């Protein structure tokens, strides 16, 4: 216990010596945040995404209509206030606002979860291949190449028909499982170039162990490019889900995603244009916002501009 007593004694001395005020400390993240805030397009995009997300969660509670209620008196009506169909109804009299908000929820969930799946597989696969290198890297990346060569739309179709149709988790998994390929390539490239940086050599020269090098030196430096790619992957995933739903392979009735709503709306395009416009507007603005945010993050996290 002598050690701990000495440690305690040192404690007070040390804290007076080191507890200096953090004078104008500018961390990398606060720096990036400062640059991001200056990017008007990215900030508008971020605010819009948050706004839509909040609206999707709380919006339906303000409406008197559940998402699957058939309002026999108002079938296929344009936006109106009297019956609280703020964005109109569809052919079956279901409230379009509530259905669109449910669609946004599902699209965002799928976008985030599928991205998370692809992130998990991609980072582990890519970082291992890149840092370990050699033969292991070679075979791991050949495997990725083979998967790339397969027409992935068929893989998803097969997966989603093998399992219960419209099972949302199968959909998450199916989309994420094909989305990780690019992530793995990006992460591997980053890990490869990081491995040759002098600060890794400095860590090796200090005797830092391999797990510690991965945890303290490789992974923190991967975060920047990975975050950027994530914000660009989310819209891809949303779009991909919409595409599957549009083909009828995605979310099943009475649930709706933006893709299935657009599919329905497209059939009524000539008589009831709002049925297409409402979900399409949300989809397009969300996709654009994610892309703007991704671009903004790329500029903000670029160390060359530090």
């Amino acid at each position, binding site marked *: 216990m002598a*050690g701990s007593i000495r*440690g305690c004694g*040192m*404690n007070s*001395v*040390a*804290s007076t*010596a*080191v507890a*200096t*005020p*953090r*004078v104008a*400390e*500018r*961390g*990398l993240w606060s720096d990036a945040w400062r640059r991001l805030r200056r990017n008007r397009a990215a900030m508008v995009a971020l605010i819009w995404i948050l706004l839509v997300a909040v609206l999707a969660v709380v919006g339906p509670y303000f409406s008197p209509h559940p998402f699957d209620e058939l309002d026999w008196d108002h079938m296929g009506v344009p936006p109106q206030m009297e019956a609280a169909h703020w964005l109109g109804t569809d052919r079956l009299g279901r409230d379009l606002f509530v259905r669109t908000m449910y669609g946004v929820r599902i699209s965002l969930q799928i976008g985030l979860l599928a991205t998370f799946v692809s992130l998990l597989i991609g980072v582990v696969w890519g970082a291992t291949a890149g840092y370990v290198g050699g033969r292991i890297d070679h075979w791991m990346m050949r495997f990725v190449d083979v998967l790339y060569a397969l027409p992935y739309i068929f893989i998803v179709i097969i997966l989603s028909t093998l399992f219960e149709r419209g099972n949302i988790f199968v959909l998450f998994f199916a989309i994420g499982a094909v989305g990780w390929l690019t992530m793995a390539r990006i992460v591997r490239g980053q890990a490869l170039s990081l491995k040759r*940086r*002098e*600060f890794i*050599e*400095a*860590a*090796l*020269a*200090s*005797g*830092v*162990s391999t797990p*510690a090098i991965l945890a*303290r*030196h490789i992974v*923190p*430096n991967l*975060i920047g490019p990975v975050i950027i790619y994530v914000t660009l992957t989310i819209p891809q995933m949303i779009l991909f889900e919409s595409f599957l739903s549009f083909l009828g392979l995605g979310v099943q009735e009475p649930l709706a995603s933006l893709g299935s709503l657009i599919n329905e709306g497209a059939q009524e395009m000539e008589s009831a244009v709002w049925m297409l416009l409402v979900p399409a507007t949300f989809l397009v603005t969300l996709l654009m916002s994610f892309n703007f945010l991704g671009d903004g993050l790329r500029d903000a996290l670029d*160390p060359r501009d*530090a």
Partner: protein
Amino acid sequence: MSGAFLKLDALRVYFSVSGGWLKPARKLKAVDGVSLEIAPGEALGIVGESGCGKSTLARAILQLVDVTAGQVVWLGRPIESLTVRQMRPLRASMQIVFQDPLASLNPRMTVGEIVAEPLRVHRADLSREQRQTEVAQMLERVGLSRDQINRYPHEFSGGQCQRIGIARAMILKPKLLVCDEPVSALDVSIQAQIINLLEDLKRESGTSILFVSHNLAVVRRLCERVLVLYLGKTMELAPSAALFGAPLHPYTRGLLASVPIPDPDLQPARLETSLTGELPSPLAPPSGCVFRTRCEFAIERCTVEVPVLEQLPDNRQIACHRWQELQLKA
């Protein structure tokens, strides 16, 4: 201390270079049979043109590249065949400062974390607070303020980053500090600051320094002895005063003549006496004496016979067939 402090015995580091599609790999002899000893507290300079193997030699001593043949004896113990795990505790006694100050610092770590990292590895007995105190003291020792401990590398200039790199290398009080071109990437007005800092650290801590540089003027200031490398081989090894005062090897002479002097009366003439030609490819080194293709004194013998490294009385070594004749001429 009994036994060798640092001793290299016929050290060889070869890299295999793939010749391309279906061509056999070729051997690049980066370091080709270098032997030398460094005493505690001594500063040895390694000079030569880029591609002569000086950085590889430094990294081989630190076991950062694999040794092909020969021995590295550190504190009386051969280390060239140790495993990574066996080598780890020894790393506390040998540290390195790099050429590119910013690239050698992890951009995602604060200065405090960077300098503390060797302590985390080798001084697990220290508490967090003790570590912080040591780091703060070290930062002040290298001329930075302890207030800067929570900042990130990109907030510092090149010279300051190099001070951080030196602080990281010196925090474990190593017995050997390898400096790989530590001032070449810095602004002229900053180089002197770093040279003076290294001079002070060496004087106060008694650390041995292995100073790799192509800047002979800097080596002359800091080092007691100098090793001149050419295509991985020792050309000349001599105490600084002797080497800079009366260089024996034609390559050493040529190198010295190439160093610019800011004197308009001397420099224009010096330009014309510089070395001719360029370093041949290390993949196909010349036969005999490797320097003969650029040596104005080369004779028939130089193309066929590899000169042996001769031991001269005043602690000098030289590898040249004709050094005695040339000395008489000069």
